[in-house]
């Protein structure tokens, strides 16, 4: 193995550019996933089965099919319906939608963990439905699942290189184009791999610490 520091130094600016895109996609994707996940979680608790069943089937379907294929679906099918996004936006939508189905399950677990007495108290005080959800239940439910949510953000970060395959210039895509133009494969790919470990390992330690603090 011949490691060339000059190549590594040349690639560093591109790596950082790519890192910015990677983080951007993960951050935007997480926001979308948190919001959509809440929609699914609340719809799955709807009193009528005409809402629960279709949403349930949709969520199961998204969760049990590969993100990569969903990404290609959005990238190639949406333009035929005259919905045109940039590659990055498509990537964010796909990441956000895919992970929202996992996040919905996390919220559901959190909501189930809120004692029944809280619901009853809200009813006894005749709080309207909206206030019961947003002022009573969700603040308690979300607090206990913060570490789990964080872990899904880390998971999304590690899935984000998939958007390179629809041409978003993230870290992996920059490594691929560096390899294609200069035939230097060793340094770029190794650096991208190490960059992921350097971000996700401290992040997972943080989540573990958070879990202990919020813990039981």
């Amino acid at each position, binding site marked *: *193995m*011949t490691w060339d520091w000059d190549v590594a130094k040349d690639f560093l600016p591109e790596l950082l550019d790519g890192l910015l895109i990677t983080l951007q996609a993960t951050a935007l994707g997480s926001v979308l996933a948190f919001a959509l996940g809440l929609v699914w979680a609340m719809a799955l608790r709807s009193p009528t089965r005409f809402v629960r069943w279709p949403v349930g089937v949709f969520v*199961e*379907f998204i*969760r*049990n*099919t*590969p*993100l*990569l*294929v*969903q990404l*290609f*679906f959005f990238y*190639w*099918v949406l333009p*035929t319906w005259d919905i045109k996004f940039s590659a990055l936006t498509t990537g964010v939508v796909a990441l956000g939608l*895919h*992970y929202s189905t*996992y996040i919905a*399950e*996390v919220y*559901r*677990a*959190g909501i*189930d*963990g809120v004692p029944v007495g809280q619901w009853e108290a809200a009813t006894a005080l005749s709080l309207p439905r909206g206030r019961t959800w947003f002022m009573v239940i969700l603040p308690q439910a979300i607090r*206990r*699942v913060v*570490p*789990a949510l964080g*872990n*899904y953000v*880390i*998971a999304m970060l*590690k*899935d*984000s*290189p*998939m958007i*390179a*395959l629809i041409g978003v210039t993230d870290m*992996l895509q920059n*490594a*691929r184009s560096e*390899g294609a133009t200069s035939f230097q*494969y*060793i340094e770029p*790919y*190794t650096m*991208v*791999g190490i960059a*992921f*470990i350097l971000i*996700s*390992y401290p992040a*997972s330690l943080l*989540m573990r610490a958070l*879990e202990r603090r919020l813990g*039981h």
Partner: protein
Amino acid sequence: MTAGLWEHWLLPGIWITIQLTLYSALFATAVAFGIGILRTSRLWIVRFLTGCYVEIFRGTSALVLMFWLFFVMPLGFEMQLVPMWAAVLALGLTYGAYGSEIVRGALAAVAPAQREAAIALSFTPAQRMRRVILPQAIPEMIPPFNNLLIELLKATALVSAVSVADITFAAQLSRLATGESLEIYSIILGLYFVLAFILTRLMRLLERKAKANIGQAPPKSGLVTRKLSAQQETAQSSGTVVSGGAQ
């Protein structure tokens, strides 16, 4: 889609995806049990090295690892792997690292009295593991392994990026040939869902068998995804966190 595309690309693609899932799952299971058991070792150096393995392979992205094995191995170590095996290696190493956390957790969850009883009966450490600990730990591992297996199935779609002709690769070719993206990708998504459903059913069967062996009944559960309690969800997602998705 034309009959030719079905016959020459999609059907062989389905077979490749099944093979990939099977081989990577077997490899990942071997890695998971090996590393998971070694992590309970009494020697700190063994625990440290296996801990490093788990953190490195859980920390990096499966797709990046796959590209690394595909492009860097031949140049750096002069080892050219057949794309299919590079893919199995990447998936097996990554999901083996996730799986080892499941194994470790299940081993730790066996009641300490069981271990003590085995020591009192002067079982050797190997006998203790094989006769007492594992038979009780394995049924506990099956539900999280089921989730991981679905993640693995979904992750096999990544191999199309290193030109292994799986279902996703066949879809790309068909799209280039016919341009019917909506039709093709809908079929492909449906196929993956059916595969995931079949795998879940098989794992449920396995769970029922394993639980029956130690005199327990399996809990009732939903159509595909197993519902978890808040505590389990947190424990599981932090323990086994997700690469190609979650759990």
